[in-house]
């Protein structure tokens, strides 16, 4: 019999509600909460249940993940399941975070389930099978069944169908497939054409992602008085990377004091961006984050003044949703210091 381990939060782990959301990770033998239904549905034995409080996971992510990975260290398991997380925002992020770490460390398949309206979906759908789950816990049976169906295919090494056939969120992967009815392209073309001509709904076979274009801001009227801030997605950080910004698919950012710095020195700053050859940027970080030129222009009074921090994250693989969130977190700092304009330096 193959083996499975299930992750749940404090509530579904039957420890308690919000007042218990701070509990540290704990490993139990056997099945607790949803793990009991998984035991019935899976072609595997659920040997352990891991429980962790959502708040603990949210505010001590790295430590929580490390401890869970350590707990799993000696265990044999063929698949790892988390949730279902329904519409509980923190729980969805916890499920995605733990699944991703377990998949990377142990190389086993992982499956979770979340509602489409949760942050975990965009953050993790490219990394794993996330079943499109219900919005309330009363959908438990149905969501567990859906997870188990895909999990059993993974356990039995059967091919997994397309996202719409299986009910998981598309992972950004497109493959060719033979239509069951063999309907040729010419007939599909006519169907689509007639519907489009007649204003009826139709489904394109190649959905084009919507582009969320931001209009370019009008020119700064009075540059002489303007306070300018510098932001980069080029991954320039102090060499010790104090904010532990990821080298790709970043979710973290940092801001670094340059009020007393005339130029970013190689060896003091470097890039942690994994999407380009770092040699030039490591030798002279100003090529991506031009503190040197901006200080010169400030002294020459070309513009008013430079905001005392530069802001940095990594652009490669980072989702638009994460990028938006990080920008929104930066904005209050700019407002507080009455910044008039931002120079956004990409790679």
């Amino acid at each position, binding site marked *: 019999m193959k083996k499975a381990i299930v992750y749940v939060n404090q509530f579904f782990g039957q420890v308690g509600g919000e007042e218990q959301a701070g509990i540290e990770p704990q490993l139990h033998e056997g099945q607790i909460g949803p793990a009991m239904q998984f035991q019935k549905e899976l072609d595997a034995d659920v040997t352990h249940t891991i429980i962790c409080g959502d708040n603990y996971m949210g505010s001590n992510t790295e430590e929580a993940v490390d401890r869970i990975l350590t707990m799993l260290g000696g265990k044999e398991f063929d698949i790892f399941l988390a949730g279902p997380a329904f519409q509980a925002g923190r729980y969805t992020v916890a499920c995605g975070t733990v699944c991703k770490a377990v998949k990377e460390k142990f190389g086993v398949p992982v499956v979770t389930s979340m509602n489409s309206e949760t942050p975990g979906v965009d953050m993790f759908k490219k990394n794993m099978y996330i079943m499109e789950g219900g919005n309330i816990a009363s959908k438990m049976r149905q969501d567990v069944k859906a997870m188990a169906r895909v999990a059993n295919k993974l356990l039995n090494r059967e091919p*997994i169908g*397309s*996202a*719409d*056939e299986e009910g998981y969120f*598309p*992972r*950004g*992967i*497109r*493959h*060719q*497939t*033979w*239509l069951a009815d*063999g*309907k*040729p*392209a*010419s*007939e*599909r*073309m*006519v169907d*689509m*054409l*007639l519907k*489009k*001509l*007649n204003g009826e709904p*139709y489904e*394109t*076979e*190649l959905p*084009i*992602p*919507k*582009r969320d274009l931001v209009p370019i801001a009008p020119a700064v009227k009075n540059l002489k008085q303007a306070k300018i801030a510098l932001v980069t997605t080029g991954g320039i950080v102090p060499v010790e990377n104090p904010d532990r910004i990821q080298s790709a698919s970043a979710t973290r950012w940092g801001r670094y004091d340059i009020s007393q710095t005339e130029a970013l020195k190689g060896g003091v700053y470097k890039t942690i961006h994994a999407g380009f050859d770092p040699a030039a940027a490591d030798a002279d970080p100003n090529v991506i984050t031009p503190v040197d030129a901006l200080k010169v222009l400030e002294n020459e009074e070309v513009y008013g003044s430079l905001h005392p921090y530069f802001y940095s994250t990594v652009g490669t693989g980072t989702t638009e949703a994460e990028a938006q969130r990080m920008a929104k977190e930066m904005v209050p700092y700019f407002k507080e210091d009455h910044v008039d304009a931002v120079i956004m330096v990409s790679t």
Partner: protein
Amino acid sequence: MKLEIGNFYVKDIVFGDQLSLRDGVLTINKEEALAYIREDERITEAELYIAKPGDKIRMCPVKEAIEPRIRPDGRSIFPGYTGDLAKAGEGVTYALKNCSVLVVGRHWGGFQDGVIDMSGEGQKYTYFGQLNNIVLVADTDEEFERNEQQKKNDALRRAGHKLAEFIGACVRDLTPEDTEVYELGGMIRRDADVEKLPSVVYVMQPQSQMEEMGYNDLVYGWDMNHVVPTVMHPNEILDGAMVSGSFMPVSSKWATYDFQNCPNIKALYKEHGKTVNFLGVIMSNLNVALEQKERSALFVAQIANSLGADGAVVAEEGYGNPDADFVGCIVALEDAGVKTVGITNECTGRDGQSQPLVTLDEKCDAIVSCGNVSQLIELPPMETVLGELQALARDGLSGGWADDEILGPSVREDGSIIMENNSMFCGDQVCGWSPKTMKEF
């Protein structure tokens, strides 16, 4: 314009004394046919084979496919290419159905050549796996391109077209089993009940990327690189006005067979008078320079507007650079108020994670998708190989490779192969056959 295609259904092919079609059995006098092929002094080596569905045959490097036909009135079936210029699309043409002439290199392949399997897992990847095929395997003295990755394949392709006409001649004096009639008069002053239907044009983007002549698709023998978009009658395409070229990664290619039978045109014909008013074809192209792409898109949109088209269908013979023409043309049509559907294949990479087309635009909101050129395909050995399988690995076929540190060579010692869909002969069938689509995983 009225075209009658008289169909003769080929159920079996054999070699024998006299070229003939009797009770569905096509008999070919092999020596006579080969002597005809060898009249072109460039042909140094030639042999004929028969490949039918279910046969344990793999062909590589396949260069072209043609439906055998004859015009009883003596006009050439490829005017301006195999014979004198004459009007195509009008009158009577006879066709041997369920049957094609395939041209395979005896030794040498190139970027634009491909693979066909007649049985097993590989059979479904090409349209020609389900046809009765007369296979010409030949070599030429075209030394200048022997070791070139891009080959014009001129002698071999012409040999195939001539052979198709040579074989088609056996039905010249016979009565077809059935006749397809394609008739479409002037675009204006049609019957009131037709004119009240939404009017539609079919926009074709055949391959024309090579600046040097001899590689691109031809219209009445004229290189498609040297045209600006123009109006054509759909019957002309069904009747040999278009001849396929020798350039694109071959899963994207439209063989001459595909032009002769173009399912997209036939599907629009079928709807004509019922759900749409099929105006005709706008023949565009796929030149490389941006200005040429923009010029073609301007022409297509202008012609569609001038003809009063409500809707359009755009199909591209290629991917990568041609995606810019495809997307640009759809955007130009949509901007001109023409509701447009596109048909294409995609290049999402072996892992399926790459952007599907080189450029994207939200205005392309109705696309029929026919496959992923970079899908990895692994196939077991085949009993018989026609041509030279090693060409897939050695000669720079778009879906093959000499060696790979993880996957090994495309052609293994036991005759099994691993390749990208790119080298499946006309595999993506954007001309309208394709039973494949693309899905999110």
